[in-house]
């Protein structure tokens, strides 16, 4: 505990510390343990009165059912399409703007960055009605574009990238400019290679943000065939006929991508998160 007993951390304190941490950790991972354990149980076993986290008879039938009967891969595919194009478009649009706002002063630049970052506070839930009507006007209901385009503008991405671009010394660009390179060349040939670490962080945040989307698919996806994984899962779980073990298998499959991404890039993730929170 933060130098509270730095000199002589007694055994009692150590035990107490581990005890607290283990209790908190169990609370944090219990839902995952439950989910994984239920996904390997038979529909009969989950209805037993005496609960056990370890299934008595391991079965893969829930996963097979989710795959071949419920076609979970279809919704997985929909989510991947939305995430892929969403992340790419978002990063392109936001990084171009962030670069211009970090490097150039032009009429309205301060106004723009204030507005862009300010949109971070807009609650999605409050924008449901107007957003739905706009998407309907453009004929974007029930197609991928309707789920992808609204997530392109993201204030957090503009903010993070412009903060980073400001740190890059301007001299690096000056010489290229004297040599007659266009702004776009400078951006792609000089700025982008220098910004690999920050783009790593931005991609991860962006992916988690896009994968997390629920409200926009809820407004856009009317037919089941176009639903993203989270939306389809929420519907599945509210059908009284669906079996808990199968829903558990489906949720396990759906959780894997975010956890893998997080474990692979946790350092960037946590750094970006705390810096964003403290500055923003």
């Amino acid at each position, binding site marked *: 505990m933060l*130098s*509270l007993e730095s000199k002589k951390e007694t055994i009692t304190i150590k035990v107490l510390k581990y005890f607290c941490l283990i209790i908190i950790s169990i609370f944090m991972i219990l839902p*995952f343990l439950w989910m994984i354990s239920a996904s390997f149980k038979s529909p009969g076993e989950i209805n037993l009165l005496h609960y056990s986290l370890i299934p008595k008879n391991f079965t893969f039938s829930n996963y097979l059912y989710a795959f071949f009967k419920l076609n979970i891969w279809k919704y997985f595919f929909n989510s991947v399409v939305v995430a892929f194009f969403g992340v790419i478009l978002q990063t392109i649009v936001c990084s171009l703007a962030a670069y211009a706002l970090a490097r150039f002063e032009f009429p309205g630049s301060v106004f723009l960055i204030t507005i862009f970052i300010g*949109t971070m506070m*807009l609650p999605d839930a409050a924008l*449901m009605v107007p957003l739905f*009507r706009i998407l309907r006007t453009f004929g974007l209901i029930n197609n991928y574009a309707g789920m992808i*385009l609204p997530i392109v503008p993201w204030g957090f991405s503009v903010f993070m990238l412009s903060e980073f671009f400001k740190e890059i010394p301007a001299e690096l660009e000056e010489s290229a400019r004297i040599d007659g390179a266009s*702004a776009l060349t400078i951006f792609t040939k000089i700025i982008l290679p220098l910004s690999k670490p920050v783009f790593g962080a931005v991609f991860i945040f962006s992916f988690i943000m896009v994968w997390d989307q*629920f409200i926009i698919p809820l407004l856009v996806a009317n037919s089941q065939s176009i639903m993203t994984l989270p939306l389809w899962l929420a519907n599945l779980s509210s059908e009284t006929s669906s079996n808990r073990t199968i829903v558990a298998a489906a949720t396990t499959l759906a959780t894997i991508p975010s956890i893998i991404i997080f474990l692979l890039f946790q350092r960037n993730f946590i750094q970006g998160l705390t810096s964003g929170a403290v500055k923003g």
Partner: protein
Amino acid sequence: MEKIKNTFLEHKTPLMFVLPAVIFFTLFKIFPILNLFWLSIHQVDKDIGDFIGFKNYLKLIHDQVFWLSLKNTTIIVILVVFFGTIFGYLAALLLTEDFKGQKLFRILIFIPVVTTVSIIAVVWKMMYYPANSGMLNSLLAYFNIPAQQWLADPKLALYALTVPLIWRIIGYNMMIFIAALKGVDKNQLEAAQVEGANWWQKLIYIIIPATKYAINMVLILAVLRTYKVFVPAYVMTSGDPQHKTETIATWIYKQSFRYWDMSYGAALAVVLFLIIMVLTIFQKKFQSE
């Protein structure tokens, strides 16, 4: 005109760079928020758009479910802020210094933050399964406590809905607190140690004041994030039973897309927007101090 043209040519490069963002932000953020106010004072059921003045706002004042949803959301916010901050701070205190297993504990506590909200809501909903065989009910059975209805129990549902929200914010708060705790002056702590201060005194008089900024930050962020809570409430209860878990956001959704009264939904959304905006201004003001 000539002047505008010249200004444009002079700044052509940056303007071209921001143009795509301007289009996207205008279309999906700026226009919707402006449109929201317009919608709330027009009748838009059949897309005609007759001006109806503040009728929707009058309706809102007499809408008991709205007031209930405001109360429910406020209770959720208070609980999430209180327990989320305390547990986050406790975890951060335990995990700031290096020791064996520190990294693993940090990851375990942080993992809920990166999971998908709606999916995790599905998992919690199943853990709250109301029959005797439900996971939490079988845990209760170990202690001879009768099975609960959880999300179906009008008295319990709101609190059952709040637990996953607390669960999901602890790791996030912890990370901000850890960053802040690293900056606490070690010499000051050692001096206090020499003078015989116990850990409680050190916590109250040195550590908490030194991390005041982070604590305020976490409190405000949690308030802002929780007031707009929609997805867990929609997935787990959709406001049932008897609107006991209705939040402002689920009520906006229901009015707009179940009862198809979009104008009224917009009026409700304006209220949510104003709450968030007032809180944000408050935060900015505080931050600049």
